[in-house]
């Protein structure tokens, strides 16, 4: 819980006149659940996209395990151990749940064009080995055994979110970027996802560091180790959930002007 896994220094990015990030700096420590909150348009997703490599920042540095990620392509960052889910579901809608999760194993598979076409020996064995891994570690864990052969496009929204989490996890990441994993879910589904995130973070098997972007304050304050608050592309507060809740700037920018007790859902 000490050395930083991800360091973001002085990040700037503008889209035309909109300055989405204005000098954001963060430090995410190994093993923690780090939440990013802030009003709509505060730059949370943009920040995740920069870490993930979908947007190149205009200024600033992103260090992952001490390595500068400047110019590293998204698929290379995945190989380094950065995985993610998306705010708007970005699944492979024509594939089954199993195949979606199998694609998450892409980096761990060795089959090439020729060995794949022959499908003898090594290729078939590799498929079976990874199928075992997926069944045991992902499908069982995320309680999706009844879904594995369903086509993803036909599933309800809440389950699609869960499949996306499974796919991101199949990568065996060191850092998991969760972009609003609970948006649009009902209470029961929110609690399921929160439980999965805690398991992913705490279980000896995974120990994945998570960056969580989420609007559901109940969940964020309950499961995060530390929280950073963004507003108009600037970081206005950072600290433990209690510290952030006590910060007047946060109240002003995000939770409202009035001094009010934060109430949990539970």
């Amino acid at each position, binding site marked *: 819980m000490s050395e930083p896994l991800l360091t973001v220094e002085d990040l700037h990015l503008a889209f035309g006149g909109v300055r989405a990030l204005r000098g954001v700096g963060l430090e995410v420590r190994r093993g923690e659940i780090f939440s990013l909150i802030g009003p709509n348009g505060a730059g949370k997703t943009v920040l995740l996209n920069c870490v993930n490599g979908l947007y190149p920042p205009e200024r600033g540095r992103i260090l992952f395990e001490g390595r500068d990620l400047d110019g590293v392509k998204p*698929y290379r960052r995945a190989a380094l151990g950065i995985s993610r889910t*998306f705010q708007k579901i970005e699944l492979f809608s024509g*594939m089954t749940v199993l195949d979606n999760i199998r694609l998450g194993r*892409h980096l761990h598979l060795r089959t090439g064009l020729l060995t*794949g076409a*022959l499908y003898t020996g090594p290729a*078939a064995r590799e*498929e079976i080995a990874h199928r075992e891994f997926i069944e045991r570690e992902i499908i069982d864990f995320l309680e999706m055994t009844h879904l594995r052969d369903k086509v993803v496009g036909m599933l309800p929204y809440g389950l699609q979110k869960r499949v996306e989490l499974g796919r991101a996890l199949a990568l065996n990441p060191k850092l998991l970027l969760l972009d609003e994993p609970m948006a649009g879910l009902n209470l029961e589904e929110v609690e399921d996802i929160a439980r999965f995130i805690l398991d992913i973070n705490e279980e000896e098997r995974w120990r994945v560091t998570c960056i969580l972007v989420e609007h559901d304050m109940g969940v964020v304050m309950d499961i995060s180790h530390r929280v950073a608050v963004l507003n108009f592309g600037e970081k206005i507060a950072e600290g433990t959930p209690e510290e952030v809740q006590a910060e007047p700037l946060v109240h002003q920018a995000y939770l409202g002007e009035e001094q009010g007790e934060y109430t949990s859902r539970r």
Partner: protein
Amino acid sequence: MTYRSSGVYHQTYAASHAWWQTNFVRAKMALLVLFVATLPLYANLYVISVANIVLYTMLSALGVQLLTGYCGQITLGHAAFIAVGAYVTAMGVLFWGLPYPLAALLGCLLAGLWSVVFGLPSARIKGFYQIMTTMAAQFITVDFIITHYVSRVGGREHYFSLPPGTITIGGWPVDSEVKVYYLAAVLTFVCFAALANLLRTKVGRAWIAIRDNDIAAEAMGVNVVAYKLLAFFAAGVLAGVAGAVWIPSLYFVSPEHFQLSWSVWIVGVILIGGVGSLHGVAFGAIFVTVILELLKLAVIPLAEFYPALTERFLYLKEAAFGLAIVLFLLYEPRGLAYRWQQLKNYFNLWPYAY
């Protein structure tokens, strides 16, 4: 989505990864293999020649299915790569003294590499713009390079003649329709099997992922550009196989065999058969070829009343093909393969509706 018959439970992962999962399906496929193997025993030469066209259409459309149906890269220049396969094979046999299998292998590889050249723009562009670059492959390869330069090699007018007996496999001359039929049937099976295998491993899944959502694919660690180029290579190799198989039944190779119309034709085949389905390639190829032959049979008696029909048959053919595509897009946009799936589900669930 398919239903498995009740009572079928897989005990191992290997069993659930198999192509054919029940004895019923295995028996069905064995019957199909038996039918294909014994067809020349009871069919006349006309039927065999139609079967050859069906097999050639399947092999041609297989690469298009891979690129368009599975990898989402629209192509309208596939005939160019078939031409590369056919020409390199023919030149290997005629001028370089290579045995036919070796020449065919060289043809496939060069067709694959040539296809990668025209796949390079796909790193940056999608959709309509990509159609333009693949059409450029058609015009540059067939209408420019092959017509103006390659055809002059050896000083033989505009085509290479391949008299029967020129093409031999280990001393066994491929000189009749029946022999071409067997060659084509074996290679079609091999190509279908190879693609079916690829689709259940890493490479095939990466292609489908790129088709469905390229941003998510890249975030999951797929090198999108490399896999697109790999798809172009594999599709080019399949086109090369089609070209190499086709020349023994042609007796001569000329640029006229590989026009834009053929590129469009095989895209139509997968539209009718079903985009993103291996069954679709087979059904589409059978459908368009057989409909065409039936049309020919219909034209002969009709020509007694309207003689101009025989000379205008070519237009009639194109018109019927266009009409078929329009009707399919309107009434069965997922193609014959989807209808086949529905039919199987119906019988699996019978007498219940679901």
